[in-house]
């Protein structure tokens, strides 16, 4: 068995386990910490697909930046009593889980009924994931979307500052 296959099963099982932990923990801080584990296992899965650049971005942006933001907001809510953040048992869990299982079954039937025909990664895959290849395409063919994303991030930062202000003057 190839090492990539072994790591696929290892990280795949870990990803499903950590994702389930995120949505089942009753304390949001515990959810956030499991979420960091989920992001790290996904970075491992990207490595089995020869995408080191995306894997590093995953750790930097998601595990580094976004989760710090989430933990900060939980802290800023400044709840005297941590019980205030806890949830009661929700009777909709059974129905939602059944619908979720149905959705996975639907995906399974769809994927098995029409095989994509790709049995192994492309031989070019190893060089595709390198920062050099991605940077070259990003700054030539995709330069306009790249600049548009910078505007989007600027708008999001301004929006977040306005929304989080204590009092907004009319």
């Amino acid at each position, binding site marked *: 068995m190839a090492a990539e296959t072994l790591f696929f099963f290892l990280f795949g099982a870990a990803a499903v386990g950590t994702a389930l932990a995120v949505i089942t923990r009753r304390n949001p801080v515990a959810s*956030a910490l499991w979420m960091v584990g989920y992001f790290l296992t996904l970075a491992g*899965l*990207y490595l089995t697909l020869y995408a080191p650049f995306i894997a590093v971005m995953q750790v930097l942006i998601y595990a580094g930046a976004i989760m710090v933001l989430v933990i900060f907001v939980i802290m800023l809510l400044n709840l005297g009593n941590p019980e205030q*953040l806890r949830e009661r048992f929700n009777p909709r869990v059974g129905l939602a889980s059944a619908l979720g299982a149905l959705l996975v079954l639907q995906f399974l039937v769809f994927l098995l009924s029409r095989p994509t025909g790709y049995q192994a990664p492309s031989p070019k895959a190893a060089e*595709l994931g390198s920062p050099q290849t991605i940077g070259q395409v990003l700054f030539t063919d995709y330069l306009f979307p790249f600049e548009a994303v910078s505007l989007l991030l600027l708008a999001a930062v301004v929006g977040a500052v306005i929304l989080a202000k204590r009092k907004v003057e009319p």
Partner: protein
Amino acid sequence: MERLPLEAYLLLSATLFTIGVVGVLTRRNAIVVLMAIEIMLNAVNLSLVAFSAYVGNVEGQLLVFFVMAVAAAEAAVGLAIVLALFRNRQTVFIDEVNLMRW
């Protein structure tokens, strides 16, 4: 060298996406709902990277890059909304915010 077909990655991605959907449907805490949305975005990223590697086309990974940027923007604005919500209503539970419900 034995490798898994593309369907293995797509099925894993679908499973993770479904876990995110169930999280959004069942949780009441707005912060956890935002995290479940991140689970779904990441599941889709996984299938994009898998397609990119198996088809041999770099554009799937570029799309992942843009999805990450949009997810960062979404997290910043979403969490600011949660903060504003908590200041005004003293709750982060989405079912207690029902002003616009008919």
